[in-house]
C-alpha cells in the first residue's frame, strides 16, 4: 500500500512539473506587454524598458525559465506585476476561502446527490422524477444556475446576500450551486450502487437476520457505496480547489478562481502561473487523498494496492 502511494506521489510530482512548464510556456505566448499592464499611462519607451528590465523580461526565455523554476523550488511564486505583492501572499488567504467553498460545495453535492440516488434506487416513481431532475441539472451551465439562484433567493426573496465577499452567509448560494451541478453524478453512481447492493445475496442475508430496512440501508448498503463516493468527492475537492472560476466570478467569491480570472484579464503572468501551479498541486494531492480514503473505506482495495 505504501509503495503504491509512493508511486502515485512520484507520478503526481511529474504531472505538477509538467503543468508548471506548460503554464510558463503558454504565458509567454500570450500577446500583450506586461510593462504596459503595470504602467498603462507611461508614455516614454525608456520607462517601459526600465520596467521590463526590473522584471527580467528582457532576458532570454531560457534564463527566465531557469530563474522561475529555481524560485519555485523554494516556494517562491514571484511577484504580481499589478499588485506589487508576492504571488504566494496573494494566493494564501484566497486558498482558504476557495477551500471553504470547495468543502461546502462537495458536502452539498454528496448530500443532495446521495439522497436523490438512494430515493431513486428504492422507488420507481422517484426514480423517474430523479432522472428528469438529473437531466435538467446536467443541462444547466454553472453560471446560469448560479444566476438563477441569485435572482430567486437573493433578489426576489431576499433570503441570501447578493453582494460579494467571503462569509458564512455568502457561502450558501455558491455552495448550493456547486452542490446542484455536481449532484447528478453522485445520484447516478449512488443509485446504481445501491440498486446493485439491494439485489445482492449479502443484503438477502441481512434481511434474513431480521435487520430493519433502514438499518440495512445505513449500515450495510451505504457502507458499500462509501468508497466510490469518497473517491469522487476527493477528486472534486481537488478540482474545485484548483479554481471554481465560474462560480467565484458569478458570486464574486474572493478565491483562487476569481484571482486567476482577474489576473488573466490584467495580463498578470506570475499570478496566473501561480494559481495554475497551486491548482495542479491541489488536484494531485486530493486525488492521492481520494485513493487513500477509498482504501480506508473498502478493505478489498487495501489488498489490491
Amino acid at each position, binding site marked *: 500500500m505504501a509503495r503504491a502511494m509512493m508511486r502515485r506521489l512520484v507520478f503526481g510530482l511529474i504531472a505538477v512539473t509538467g503543468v508548471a512548464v506548460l503554464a510558463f510556456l503558454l504565458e509567454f505566448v500570450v500577446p500583450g506587454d506586461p510593462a504596459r499592464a503595470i504602467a498603462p499611462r507611461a508614455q516614454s519607451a525608456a520607462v517601459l524598458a526600465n520596467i521590463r528590465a526590473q522584471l527580467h523580461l528582457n532576458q532570454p526565455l531560457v534564463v527566465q525559465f531557469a530563474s522561475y523554476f529555481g524560485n519555485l523550488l523554494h516556494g517562491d511564486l514571484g511577484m504580481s506585476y499589478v499588485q506589487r505583492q508576492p504571488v504566494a501572499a496573494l494566493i494564501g488567504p484566497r486558498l482558504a476561502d476557495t477551500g471553504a467553498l470547495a468543502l461546502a460545495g462537495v458536502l452539498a453535492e454528496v448530500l443532495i446527490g446521495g439522497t436523490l440516488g438512494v430515493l431513486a434506487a428504492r422507488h420507481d416513481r422517484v426514480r423517474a422524477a430523479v432522472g428528469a431532475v438529473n437531466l435538467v441539472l446536467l443541462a444547466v451551465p454553472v453560471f446560469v444556475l448560479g444566476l438563477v439562484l441569485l435572482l430567486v433567493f437573493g433578489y426576489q426573496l431576499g433570503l441570501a446576500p447578493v453582494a460579494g465577499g467571503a462569509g458564512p452567509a455568502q457561502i450558501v448560494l455558491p455552495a448550493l450551486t456547486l452542490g446542484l451541478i455536481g449532484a447528478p453524478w453522485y445520484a447516478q453512481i449512488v443509485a446504481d450502487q445501491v440498486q446493485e447492493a439491494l*439485489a*445482492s*445475496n*449479502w443484503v*438477502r*442475508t*441481512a*434481511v*434474513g*437476520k*431480521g*435487520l*430493519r430496512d433502514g*438499518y440495512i440501508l445505513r*449500515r*450495510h448498503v451505504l*457502507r*458499500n457505496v*462509501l*468508497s466510490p463516493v469518497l473517491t469522487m468527492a476527493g477528486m472534486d475537492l481537488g478540482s474545485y480547489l484548483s479554481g471554481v472560476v465560474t462560480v467565484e466570478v458569478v458570486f464574486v467569491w474572493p478565491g483562487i478562481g476569481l484571482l486567476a480570472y482577474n489576473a488573466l484579464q490584467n495580463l498578470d503572468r506570475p499570478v496566473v502561473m501561480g494559481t495554475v501551479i497551486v491548482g495542479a498541486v491541489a488536484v494531485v494531492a486530493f486525488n492521492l487523498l481520494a485513493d487513500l480514503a477509498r482504501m480506508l*473505506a*473498502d*478493505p*478489498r482495495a487495501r*489488498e489490491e494496492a
Partner: protein
Amino acid sequence: MPGDAGRPAALMARDVSVRYGPVRAVREASLTVGAGQAVALIGETGSGKSSLAFAVARLLPRSARVTGRVEIAGTDVLAADWRRFRGERARLLGCVAQDAMAALNPVLPVGRQVGELFAVHAGMGRRQAAAAASAALASVRIDHPEAVARLYPHQLSGGMRQRVMVAMALALRPPLVVADEPTTALDVSTQAEILGLVAELRERVGSGLLWITHDIGVVAELADWAAVMYAGRIVETGPVEAIFDAPAHPYTEGLLLTRRDLRSGAPGSPLFQIPGAPPARPDEAPGCPFMPRCPRATAVCAAREPPLLPLAGRGEAGHQAACHHPAPPGAPPAPAPARARTAAP
C-alpha cells in the same frame, strides 16, 4: 411424520407455489420437517428446490409470487405481517447460503456481521455483542475467534466463510435451519468438515434442518427424510432408507444410478446420465413433466400429470411418489433404456 412429540414441526409447508411472472418455479409442494429432524431436498439446478427453500423463509425477491401455507414452529409465515415477520424471522430460522462470499457483506468485518444478530435480537451492547460473536465463531470451531472476527470476508478461506454463515444461522438457536447447497463451492475435505459441523451443531441446538442439494451422495450421511424435486414438483418423498433401497419414481432411480456410477466407476469410465433435460415450462404440457425422459412412459403419462400418492404395499410409512408406474419394491433399479446416453469421458 416423525419428530419430537411435544414440539410443533420445525417446518410445515402445504401446497406452496412460486411464480416469477408467468413462470411457475414451484407447483403445490408440500413438505414437513419435524422438530429436530433433518430433511434433504434433492433436485437438479432449476428444479425449484432453492425457490421452495427461500419461499418458506420469505426471502425471495419481490418479483416472486408465493402462495400456499407455511408454518415454522407453529408460526404462520406467509400470512404474517411483513414488518412483524422481518423481526421474528431470525428467531424462527437460520439460512446458510450456497456462496458464502456473496452472502457476506464485503466491507464489514465478519465479527460485526455475526454480532449484529445479538445486538438486534438480544438487545446486547456493542462489547457484549462482540463477545457473543466470538463465542459463536468459536462454536463453529474457528480458532482465535477474536482475531478472525476482525477480518473481512475476502480474507477468509471458503471453509471459514461457510463456518461464519453456519455460526450466524445457528446463533439464535432457531427451530429451523435452511441450508442451500452450502458445500458445493468447497473442496471435498472442507465439504466433509462443514457437513460434520452442521450435523453436530444441529443436534446440540435441536434445530430442524432443510438441506438442499443436487448431490444425492451427502443425503444418506445427513438426513432422516428426503424429498426429490423435479420440474417444480416434489415427485418422491419418504424416509431416506426407503428412498435409497426402493426408489419408486424413475427420476429418483436415475439420480441414484448417477451416484452409484460415481462410487464404483474407475476414473475415466463413462458416467451415467439421465437422458434428456427437464422441460423449460413444465406447466404448459398436460402430462407428466418427466415423460420425455422416462423409460416407463405410456399413454396415460402424456395425458395426465400424476399426483403425489402414498405407495401401496410398502413397509415404510410416508413413502410417496408422483408416478403412474412406480417401480415395484425390490425391482432392479436400472431400467435398461435409461443407459442410452453416456457422458463423454
